[in-house]
């Protein structure tokens, strides 16, 4: 009896988090508002080549692995940590600089697709060679804290049952054919989501002979979710918002 009450104390019976709770946590990204003299130390410290100091200081969130190595490198301490946007609908929308500072993400997928798919979205996760960090987080999306099933999002076992391909990994040479087959097997209309830095640009693996440069070259991507890996609540919220909910 006593043992049981201790254990209950340790795991309170709390319902899954509300959308507000999930949205209250930020994923911080490095950003320079001003005061950069273009010395390029941050760019050479960046392991995935996300920073460009050529014309103005810009960061490509689709390449950033959120390691924050650049923050300590700046001799002028000009790099600050700011909240990153949840998602983007176009690849170029992930590049930020002083002339285009990061703000809350907006916009929804195209109207006919959203209307055809409705409120309940069946998701097929497709790993194209990720490090398995994203798989950890996709699995967490269904745990009792996020419980994406309550929003009508569910993982299905076959691409033939799916409305959405949630693609992770840089699209390795060895996975490309299987990914194309999976895409073909998914009925239209369908939505392709690139989840994580690898899927968006190849991330830290970009530039390899066989590692691939992201999903975009092989499949058309409708929704980009940055993060390395993106925490589960961000992936859930990004999908909901892109479908025009909340």
């Amino acid at each position, binding site marked *: 009896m006593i043992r049981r009450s201790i254990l209950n104390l340790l795991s309170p019976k709390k319902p899954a988090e509300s959308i507000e709770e999930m949205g209250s946590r930020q994923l911080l990204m490095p950003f320079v508002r001003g005061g950069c003299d273009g010395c390029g130390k941050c760019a050479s410290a960046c392991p995935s080549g996300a920073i460009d100091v050529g014309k103005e200081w810009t960061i490509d969130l689709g390449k950033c692995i959120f390691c924050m190595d650049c923050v300590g490198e700046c001799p002028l301490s000009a790099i600050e940590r700011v909240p990153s946007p949840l998602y983007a609908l176009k690849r170029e929308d992930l590049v930020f600089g002083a002339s285009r500072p990061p703000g809350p993400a907006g916009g929804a997928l195209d109207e006919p697709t959203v209307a055809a798919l409705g409120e309940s979205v069946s998701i097929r996760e*497709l790993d194209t*060679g990720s490090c*398995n*960090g994203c798989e*950890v987080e996709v699995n967490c999306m269904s*745990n009792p804290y996020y419980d994406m099933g309550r929003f009508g999002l569910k993982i299905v076992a076959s691409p033939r049952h799916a409305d959405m391909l949630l693609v992770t990994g840089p699209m390795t040479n060895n996975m490309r054919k299987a990914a194309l087959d999976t895409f073909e097997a998914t009925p239209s209309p369908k939505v392709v989501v690139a989840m994580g830095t690898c899927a968006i640009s190849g991330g830290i693996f970009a530039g*390899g002979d066989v590692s691939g440069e992201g999903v975009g070259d092989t499949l058309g991507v409708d929704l980009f979710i940055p993060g390395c890996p993106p925490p589960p609540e961000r992936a859930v919220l990004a999908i909901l918002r892109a479908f025009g909910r909340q």
Partner: protein
Amino acid sequence: MRLGDPIACDPALLAQYVKAYCDEGWRVVSMFASESSPGSTVNVLLRRGGEVARVASETVGSYPAVSALVPAASVFERAMWEMSGVVPEGHGYLVPAIYWRKGDGHPLQKAPYSIDGEERVPLPNNPIRGAGLFEIPVGPVHAGVIEPGHFRFSVAGEPILEMRVHLGYAHKGIEKMMEGPVSRNRAHLAERISGDNAVAHSLACAHIVEGDAPVPRRARQIRVILSEIERIHNHLDVLAGLCTDCAFSVAAAYGSEVRERLLRANREIFGNRLLMGNVVPGGVRNDLSREDVSKLEAAVMHAGFGAKKLEGYIRRTPSVVDRLETTGVLRTEDALRYGTVGVVARASGVASDVRAELPYEEYGALSFNPVSLKKGDVMSRAAVRADEIVESVSLILQCTSEMEEGEIRRGYETPDGLSCGIVESPRGELVHCADVRDGEVWRYSIRDPSFVNWPAMEVAVLDNIVPDFPLINKSFGLSYSGNDV
């Protein structure tokens, strides 16, 4: 760890040399070819308890296969053959292991090489044939949320008569990417060899980069804490996954809840749910404040309670126990034959644990009981994991109670020559080796524990029914990305 001068031998005698070592109780832990003029040096790394030895042989073109005498070398030779172009003559099963590409030259040789076309070379059918026998191909896109891999089951009715694992879908050429000037920061890439084992991989990489100079004591303690948290969350994932796979949803939900709380604590304390970016060459990145330590202690204790409660759920539910016991038995002789490591080996009666045998960081100063069971079935592997979580909690608490203020980073210098980093990742013994020549990493070899454990699964599934395969696979808990590098 710097490796001393090797035992040099003629390539014609390499197999006999390795066999002689193995007869004395040594085990092949890694094998890789490093290009030299005119051919390649085949390095065989062996370990017996705390002793590490290297047998090296200068080969040109081909050499008699080691696997003809030592089966554990088989998968290494397959990878060496396709990645470095060293042909093991008389190898019984020479199919590609990870690369699967046609073209001139080989990716791990220095000369330029080409890749022909987009397609992988076709997968071979299983050798077994007969009337009423079916071959079931599975993957690389699976029904669950897991990584890509291809399995071929030969079945007569329900029981599996033969299973072959074909991996390489996640092959990204990380070994090649690791080459270059030693000064480059490799920690982030190492973490992403296998994301759920980020700490172990970056630690093995750091051991190579740091040479033999020890990092500050506080950093060593924090590294132990990070490694053990990683072990807890990986083991919890497997326990919860086992419950999912036998449709025991209540326990699965409980297990994933316990794990999620730990991942959240990771984010709060270390800034990343999977602990990425914390181990850096020379020490650790983030120091722990007093509040951090008390949060950490609460979080891991909760995880420890949770793991035991979860194990209790499993043990008290006969229908689940029935699925787990006597399923997927890996016998002790097979575990030894394939050179398996980690939880898989320890559940089959092979008590091998790098933390106890070859202590690194602060492990030598801490006390823990290596867990080992004999039966080798899915239940034993689950039980080993549950018990190891408790040991991990104890290790973490030992560290936090003895922590003293101090620095957490120190300068380091990478020595030339061959060195290796051997750590106990959540999956088992993990080995990184680097051949550093004149300040350049000439060859970097990564041997994830999954690499040696996958072949053992090919025998563990025999005579089991196909619906039990997901359980067996989950109980092994192997990485595809780490295997394919």
